[in-house]
């Protein structure tokens, strides 16, 4: 089975600063694999081993995110045999369709695939729509919120968790699946895998993205006003502390 796992490289949210204009300062943030895509990579690795498949990772983005060898190795140390990249600085990839069109174009340029796996959403924009839109653009089956994948010959039996129930679906291939962040616990790459990652091939694809135009205009992006909090903080867990807590609760709600 040929499996392609999509992963987005995003700024590390712990390192995002705030400018005096209340806009985000991404300039000092380092790049990392979007955390929900780690679950997609893990699920892809498992499916690949169950089907004696071949796993390729795909990432689309700007050069600032994708040029670094560290991030490339990080992806490759987690299971994929090769990495395909679409690097394009003329796009912001800031809406779900723009990104989906770029991924669809990249997928069309490959020599075929059986399954494309995506995470539930990206750590930065979290629209949770890219996988679905990729499937719809390619006109192939697509399922979101997948919590289990069981290969059965050339079809997949897929469990999808909804708010009020669980669906078991039969999906013919090729297909695009978006997995949840609780489908697995991503494993930490072993030293051997980290060493091997540097030797795995990285292909920079030449894919024209002329169709991938944005359909959303970002008018502004501002840090929300922080809710005023009293911040009465006391230290210690003795009787006195418990009594002040009790008095506070009594005054507020009891």
């Amino acid at each position, binding site marked *: 089975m040929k499996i392609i796992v999509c992963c987005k490289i995003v700024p590390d949210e712990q390192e995002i600063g705030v400018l005096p204009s209340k806009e985000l300062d991404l300039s000092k943030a380092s790049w990392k694999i979007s955390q929900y895509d780690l679950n997609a990579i893990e699920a892809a690795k498992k499916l690949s081993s169950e089907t004696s498949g071949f796993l390729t990772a795909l990432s689309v983005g700007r050069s600032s995110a994708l040029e670094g060898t560290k991030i490339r190795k990080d992806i490759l140390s987690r299971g994929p045999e090769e990495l395909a990249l679409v690097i394009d600085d003329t796009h912001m990839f800031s809406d779900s369709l723009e990104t989906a069109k770029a991924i669809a174009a990249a997928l069309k340029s490959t020599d075929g695939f059986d399954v494309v796996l995506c995470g539930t959403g990206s750590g930065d924009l*979290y*629209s949770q729509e890219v996988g679905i*839109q990729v499937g719809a653009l390619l006109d192939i089956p697509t399922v979101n919120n997948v919590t289990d994948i069981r290969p059965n010959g050339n079809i997949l039996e897929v469990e999808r968790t909804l708010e009020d129930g669980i669906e078991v679906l039969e999906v013919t291939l090729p297909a695009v699946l978006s997995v949840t962040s609780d489908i697995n616990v991503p494993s930490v790459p072993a030293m051997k895998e980290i060493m091997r990652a540097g030797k795995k091939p990285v292909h920079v694809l030449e894919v024209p993205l002329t169709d991938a135009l944005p359909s959303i205009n970002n008018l502004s992006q501002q840090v929300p006003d922080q809710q005023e909090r009293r911040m009465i903080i006391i230290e210690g867990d003795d009787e006195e502390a418990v009594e002040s807590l009790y008095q506070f609760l009594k005054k507020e709600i009891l």
Partner: protein
Amino acid sequence: MPFQSIFVISEKKESLYELCFGARKLSDQVTAVIFGDRTAAENVADCGAKCVLYCPTESCIPEDYCKAIASEVKKSPCALVLLNNSVRSRCIAGKLGAYLDTAVITCASEIVADNGDIVCKRTVYGGAAISSQAFTGSYGVITVGNGIFGDIDAKYPVTEKIEQISEKPECTVKIIARNEKKSGGTNLAAAKRIVDVGRGLASEEDLDMCNQLASLLDAEVGCSRPVAENNKWMPISNYIGLTGTTVKPDLLFALGVSGQVQHIAGINKSKVIVAINKDKNAPIFKNADFGIVGDIYKIVPALIKKLS
């Protein structure tokens, strides 16, 4: 781009009324799309829509109608589509967006008309920022966060225009089983008081202590993402945060919650936040009204004694 007409798509009656109420604030030309038979459509004829289109689903799932719905939407030269933010709705939204050549604005926390434009707000970067966005094309698809339109305070006439959608469904995945989930029964989004359990809890048995505190405070119990997802000590539906449930209780009592930005984004509408954590540098204290730097295993039992 002004959107003259709005399509509201919903698989649930409650969210249909809520979305139609919101849609009517933006336009009089509202079409409701529901999944079910003519009787189901007649039952919601007073939702506020000019027309109710029904999609029978005896032998398929709602997603199979996406192309059919897109054809209906395309009959308007420009239109907005509103859905709730459920898993299935997001799937329908994404497909419709692809067929209508538009991105989806997911989980909008505000939708307002501004000079003929529809401007949406949504949270990005795990709660670090709020983005204001507008569609640039003739169509737009939005999934709407819970309760953003407020209480429904309007009554609408019953519409006579009830029609079956004209195109047939296209089955792309086959459903082979469906199990209703046993419901936990907690509705955190509506809870007035919440005990919020974090990773500071050492073991699953210690939830007893938290439950006991909650019952004395007449509170529901929620948790942070890792407690549900990694430890699996509580159902996924009980985790609070930007990607889980967003809450707005009068009192939120955080036990051993560190206060990651995504979690704070889920609790910052609480009126009063009380926090106990061992680590005095935990970000939760910057978001608390009252905090104790100390051991939950000493403080909570002592507090339970006082409250009983």
